[in-house]
């Protein structure tokens, strides 16, 4: 389970023109809970605070204020244990191109404390699921971006995490590969894992998410099943909720 309570995060950026420092509040008092066996969709435009929120849950960043619990563990105090239970994938992540998928997965399995033999077996199983088993011994600089993304997904799931966070998992993928990823997310849900997916692709949200939270200007809106949100804002698509939020009327 993931429990996020009153999360705050601000950054200081330098304005090159005025030479002054500016404080930007990226996340402002966000709270939500994701249960095991649930897929939570985190939506929002670029720069809304989605990635910052996900990075804080994945312990890559520390919140300025608020509290996050993953599987009952405090992310600020037990970061290493949290990362052991969490599979994180982000668009900012790439694969080590000098390795083959098999080598990479074996190595990351060891990083996560998985026995190398088990890591390799599980790696091959995941590559098979992602239809990449034929490329398991090909150096990754020879793989396409979609194939590399599949390896990244396998890397994130290698240690059999209870919690999975996928930030834009289908970015840059063709329709077929994207479908494979969605199928995998459904499998994870059926296995009782806690899943958070951040995306721009609205049909994907409709298709797989049990509940949706829309981050806009660092604040969370919605936090309900997609149909309920549509009803709440009296619109037909989630895109329209976006437009309303941008116009300021829905807040």
């Amino acid at each position, binding site marked *: 389970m993931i429990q996020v309570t009153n999360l705050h995060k601000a950054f200081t950026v330098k304005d090159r023109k005025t030479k002054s420092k500016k404080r930007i509040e990226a996340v402002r008092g966000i709270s939500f809970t994701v249960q095991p066996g649930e897929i939570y969709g985190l939506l929002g435009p670029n720069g809304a605070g989605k990635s910052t929120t996900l990075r804080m849950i994945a312990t*890559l960043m520390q919140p300025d204020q608020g509290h996050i619990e993953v599987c009952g563990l405090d992310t600020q105090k037990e970061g290493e244990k949290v990362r052991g239970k*969490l599979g994180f994938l982000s668009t900012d*992540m*790439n694969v080590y191109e000098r*390795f083959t998928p098999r080598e990479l997965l074996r*190595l990351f399995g060891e*990083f996560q404390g998985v026995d190398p033999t088990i890591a390799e077996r599980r790696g091959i199983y995941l590559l098979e699921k992602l239809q990449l088993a034929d490329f398991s011994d090909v150096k990754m600089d020879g793989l396409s971006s979609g194939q590399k993304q599949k390896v990244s997904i396998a890397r994130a799931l290698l240690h059999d995490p209870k919690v999975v966070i996928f930030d834009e998992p289908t970015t840059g993928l063709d329709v077929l590969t994207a479908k494979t990823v969605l199928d995998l997310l459904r499998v994870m849900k059926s296995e009782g894992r806690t899943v958070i997916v951040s995306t721009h692709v609205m049909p994907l949200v409709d298709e797989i998410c049990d509940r949706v939270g829309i981050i806009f200007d660092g604040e969370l809106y919605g936090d309900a099943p997609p149909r309920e949100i549509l009803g709440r804002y009296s619109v037909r698509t989630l895109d329209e909720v976006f437009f309303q939020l941008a116009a300021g009327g829905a807040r």
Partner: protein
Amino acid sequence: MRGVGLIFKKEWMEFSKDKRTLFFTFIMPLILYPAIFTMMTKMAQGDRDRRHGQASRIVVVDPSNALKPILSLDSKDFLVMDTPSGDLKQALRDQKLDLAIEVDADAAAKLQKQEPFTIKAMVDESESSSEYAMKRLKDTLEKQDKAWVAARLEAIKAPKDLPNPTNLVKEKASDLALELSKVLGMWVPYILLIGLYTNAMQHGAYMTAGEKERHTLLSLLSTSLPRTHIIWGKLLATFSIGVLGTIMNIVAMNLSFILLGRQIATAEAMQGGAAMETVKLADMASPSTLMLTLLLLIPLGLFFSSIILFLGTQAKNTREAMTAITPGIFVVIMLGVFSMAPGLDKMAALPYIPVLNVALTIRKLFSHQAVAWQYILAFLMTTGLAGGMAWISTRLLNRESVLFKQ
């Protein structure tokens, strides 16, 4: 510490996949140094043989013919040429001749009266052939002076040893091994300082800023490995590559010296010369000297590697990292050159100056003058600095502004 070992393994696995870098780091020195040394020796030998085989071209202005006939007789060493038109100095610079000799106009009369006469020799010291001609002239004059003095002594029936009241006999306190060991003691710190830094810098930048640039660092940080383990694993990998690269350089140089020694010995034997005095590495540096030097490499290598990691961690890409790391080469070269300065070992403050005290200690180890407290101080000081820099790098890797620098 499992995480440190795993990151170390990962970095070495990645490094070993880059065959080109492996070749340039470990194989290239083994080919390059012997090749360069052999080529330079061959060129120097060729030049020397050419000089030895050819008579020096000289012009002699000697109106009284006091010296010219003597030099003309020595056709093996001198080729007496006609005075060229124009400036003699320019003729020397243009290498049209090797030496211009001017003898006093009344030299023959002075010689007759047993008075000294002056010989002026114009030489171009920037040219080895001109310098060699000067040496030949000196040798010939020394021989001729002796002959003239012997004739004069005989004329007055004086003993032959009259002009030599003393006889200086030189006895060497040191042997060739110690002399070479002191030379090594000057060179080794220089090579170590530069080798450790330059061999580690590329890989340090690749492992830190390179990971950010290739977007792989986040996947590493999202594992359950502590960040301290990640930075220490990278530090040890950078350090080990730097040290191994440096050792390969030293091995390659040693190999070159052995080849060089053999070439010279063969050349001497072919010319029927005396057997050359040969010195083994073991005579110059005892196993304890080598071991203590290698032991000092550990903190020094760690210190350099942690500086490289510190700079690399702050950069957002490899180019930025190299821009920050490269100026360090000049600092290290300056330190290296300074460490070779004569009289350096006499400076009282040196044992307290970081890095240079390592150079001083190695120099003293090779000179058989090592002082225990200086060695321990250099070791502890460098270890402290390495630890401090590694701590700063770890702190830096925990800073979000550094991690997510765009």
